[in-house]
């Protein structure tokens, strides 16, 4: 065996063995592929809040452009969020009836920058028009969220806004948000389960 062959056989051996490796991603179901991330403001006591109102559509952020839309998938998420809030003792009211809490739903599609990072709210001032909640001219504020994951594909976020103290604070503080990422998230059939997952890991949202 010449020197070249002596080198080739170990390389062939390693290449051959590497092909026997178990692929971690191919072993995941759709459900297992999904992650649920929640951030909360620890200073908030939810028993101080009674009512909530849900945005009537979703904000869609698609490659830097954003607009509002209401699809069947959005409606499934909105219904699931309302059910979860009501099950925790909050009363749904119209946005014109001075709700204590507002809830925004946002769909993200492929975007080039880490838009979900701290710049999500700080840089853009919130995608959901503050006028919708009756606080025109106000910006969105609150704790810097989404510090763990940069975002490259699709995601759905829910945000709970403190409307009760917006006037006193001079800003609409985001007191909780939830992030859903993974396979099959833009589906009506997975909406309820995904929303449940976010609320189940946030037991402090309770009247």
């Amino acid at each position: 065996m010449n020197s070249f062959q002596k080198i080739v056989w170990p390389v062939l051996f390693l290449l051959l063995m590497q092909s026997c490796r178990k692929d971690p991603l191919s072993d995941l179901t759709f459900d297992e592929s999904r992650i649920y991330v929640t951030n909360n403001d620890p200073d908030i006591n939810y028993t101080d809040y009674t009512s909530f109102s849900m945005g009537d559509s979703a904000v869609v952020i698609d490659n830097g452009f954003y607009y509002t839309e209401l699809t069947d998938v959005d409606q499934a998420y909105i219904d699931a969020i309302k059910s979860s809030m009501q099950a925790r003792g909050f009363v749904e009211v119209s946005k014109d009836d001075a709700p204590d809490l507002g809830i925004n739903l946002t769909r993200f599609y492929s975007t080039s920058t880490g838009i979900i990072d701290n710049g999500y709210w700080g840089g853009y001032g919130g995608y959901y028009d503050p006028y919708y909640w009756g606080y025109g001219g106000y910006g969105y504020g609150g704790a810097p969220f989404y510090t763990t994951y940069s975002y490259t594909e699709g995601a759905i976020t829910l945000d709970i806004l403190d409307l009760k103290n917006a006037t006193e604070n001079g800003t609409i503080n985001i007191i909780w948000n939830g992030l859903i990422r993974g396979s099959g998230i833009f589906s009506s059939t997975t909406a309820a389960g995904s929303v449940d997952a976010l609320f189940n890991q946030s037991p402090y949202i309770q009247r």
Partner: protein
Amino acid sequence: MKIKISILVCSIFLSISAWSQQDRLHVSIQYNYALPQGSLKNDVVEKGSGRGAVLDVQYKINPLYSIGVGFGWQDYYEKFPRKEYQSGENEITSAVLTNSVQIIPVLAKGRFYPLGNEQKSMVQPYLSAGVGFSLINFEQYLGQFGGSGNKLGFSWQGGAGADIRFSKTSRAGFTAGVNYLNSSYKEFGFGNFNSINIHAGIYIPME
């Protein structure tokens, strides 16, 4: 796929056999089962790995000692059920966690054959020791989102085993043994990635 791999492995051995003229230089290829130890077991994968192999080349200096080089490959994989992780100060992430580790040791090895009478005995027990480095590839996923990193670290190995000739006149035979492999991995707060390895296969002369 497995049939193709088997055919390739057999082809390799037949080719090597054809070149073999003497029997001072031996090559062995062995299946390897690894039991993780230390930080590898406590922090990364709890289960043993049946996806591994060892390729050793040994040159007999005299009836008592041989020296050579050994290549290994071991794939560790484990998927942990969905669980909530504290991923930030006020951030919770619910995810299925998957760890995937490949360890590729390249070691200078020596063997001591206490019987030293290879012409008389069918069975040749040996003690072995090795020193070198391991290439460690570590991938970790939360759901389908993750990252990977490669690290080259110092490695040493100690073990024992036996070569068993196919027949009294054969220059090839079975080989089997047990060893302990220590692979340095001082990353992300982990300790060494160690393992107890049980290996068995065949050896043939290749000179």
